[in-house]
């Protein structure tokens, strides 16, 4: 898990090893105590493996069309059937995993960095930084977020990069809020004051003393947000923005299959849709599991 290594560095050097140990034993405890979380982590591993090796695993070329073999229902040769130009749906679903994950991970990473930074400034300095960031966050949240994303893509141009930026922008408020709240309560904590007194600069205090402690709740936010980011990006490509055909991408594949569902060719839309659902489901479950790990009080 990418979430774990930074947490190791959070505590002062003496307790580092011990806290990492506690964290791992807690992870094992929660994973074994709650089978759902274990399933979520296994699914996550599977999705990551498919994202990395998808093109190798795919039995057919995802772009090779074969008109004589179009619209075939699922069979042993084509597990998920073939689409309207005879491409293998199973291969396309596998290959699309990488693109979908890449879009949402990049978007979430950008909002994590930007939102975290802004939230930290607001929480640490307070006063007009706080008001400025608060106003920005409120303005973004004043829009229905998916609609704002549509507007941004329309204004900035219909490209995959802009889908990423739009998804990042609508996610910034969540990170800014979490970071602000977490930093704000620690601003006057003993160890922060001690670090300041020892002559550390504000930037150093923020980076090495405040930020690591605000990280765990933000990582939970990442996992809960990931699912939503995937849904948003797929939704945008479903309505024809961003990724263009014939690229294999879940949202587009559902859109292409949508026209055939009323005539009964369900496999074109249902399989990519199910893959999308499974990915989102995994991230949501994992977010709940991570939250249990970080904040035992809110365990459900």
């Amino acid at each position, binding site marked *: 898990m990418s979430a774990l290594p930074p947490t190791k560095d959070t505590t002062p050097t003496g307790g580092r090893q011990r806290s990492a140990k506690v964290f791992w034993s807690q992870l094992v405890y929660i994973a074994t105590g709650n089978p759902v979380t274990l399933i979520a982590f296994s699914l996550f591993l599977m999705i990551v493996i498919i994202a990395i090796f998808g093109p190798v695993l795919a039995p057919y070329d995802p772009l090779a069309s074969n008109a004589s073999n179009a619209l075939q229902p699922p069979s042993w040769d084509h597990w998920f059937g073939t689409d309207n130009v005879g491409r293998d749906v199973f291969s396309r679903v596998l290959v699309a995993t990488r693109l979908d994950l890449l879009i949402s991970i990049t978007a979430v990473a950008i909002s994590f960095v930007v939102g975290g930074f802004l939230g930290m400034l607001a929480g640490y300095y307070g006063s007009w930084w706080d008001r400025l960031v608060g*106003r920005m966050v*409120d*303005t973004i*949240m*004043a*829009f*229905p*977020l*998916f*609609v*704002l994303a*549509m*507007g*941004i*893509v*329309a*204004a*900035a*141009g*219909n490209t995959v990069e802009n889908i990423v930026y739009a998804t990042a922008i609508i996610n910034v408020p969540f990170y800014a809020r979490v970071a602000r709240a977490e930093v704000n309560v620690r601003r006057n904590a003993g160890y922060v004051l001690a670090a300041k007194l020892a002559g550390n600069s504000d930037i150093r205090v923020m980076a090495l003393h405040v930020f690591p402690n605000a990280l765990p709740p933000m990582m939970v936010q990442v996992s809960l947000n990931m*699912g939503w980011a995937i*849904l948003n990006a*797929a*939704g945008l490509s*479903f*309505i*024809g*923005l961003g990724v263009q055909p014939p690229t294999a991408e879940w*949202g587009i594949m*559902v*859109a292409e*299959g*949508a026209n055939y*569902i*009323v*005539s*009964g060719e*369900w496999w074109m*839309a*249902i399989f990519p*849709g*199910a893959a*999308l*659902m499974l990915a*989102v*489901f995994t991230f*949501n*479950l994992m977010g709940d599991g991570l939250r249990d790990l970080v904040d035992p009080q809110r365990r459900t």
Partner: protein
Amino acid sequence: MSGSRLAIVGHRLLQAVPSIIGIIVVTFLLTRALPGDPAAYFAGPAANEESIAQIRAQLGLDKSLPEQFWVYVVDLVDGDLGTSLTTGQEVTDDILRRLPASLELTLAALIFSIGVALPLGIMAALRENSWIDHLCRVVVTAGVSLPTFFTGLFLLYIFYYLLGLAPAPLGRLNILYLSPEPVTGLYTIDALIAGDFDTFWASFTQLILPSITLGLFSLAPVARMTRAAMLQVLGGEFVRTARAAGLSRRTVVITYALRNAILPVITTLGMVFSFMLGANVLVEKVFAWPGIGSYAIEALIASDYAAVQGFVLTMAILFVILNLFIDIIYTLVDPRVGIDS
């Protein structure tokens, strides 16, 4: 007591002003963010220097940014959102004509999701760890993971193609029927007002699948919040006292617990509306619903910028109004408001 409530409502109305200013500034900036020269873009590929300059003057793009902003605001106050390239009509007219379709869909979805989510959450809290609690958990987790367009297509396949129960996904009303005399703009209600039950039934059956699709998506946060809030309130001392005093189970749950638990549920409705207005666009595309969402999609594909901007602005203003409405309901429902002061 009512005076302090009024003051709170008034204060809340004032708080909406910065949001609206923010929305106007952002939508203005979005227009100016058009890649390249907007005038050349609007003039089309066949334009020469002269016609581009003409269009630039016509659009007011030769003025300074603050001046352009002023013009934009003045036009907005007039209700002028520009002309759509695809329909050739005023964007304001287009949107106003299509808005009732979207509102009818959203409203029906909201009724469905609250009607299911509230009882589900309450039952789950009353019988913690029973089958209904597990059902609630499954619904909540699945609900937020389901892509709206996927749910819609799935329901269509089952209820239209396999079972033949639902009508074809071709908008609000089968072409065999005439749309009812517009009073509210909502076909189902207008048909009832006109006393035309055939039309009512026809439009109602068209409405069922889209609104369930949209409702399923928004059901999760409401059910989750209801369950959590009810659990917390039911553990409270005043509930125990009420029970000990021998009040009926019904009174304890509905009057004592629910009235307090409903408050956090009302606050989550804000987020629910944000999801719903966005998901509206996707549902409208799946069911060929002639609302402002499908209008925006057509406009996006055709790069019809004024229409998209009008759509974003309308949705945002709608969202602010809904949030305002939620907050006002909150102050009216909250039993604590006005007692302290």
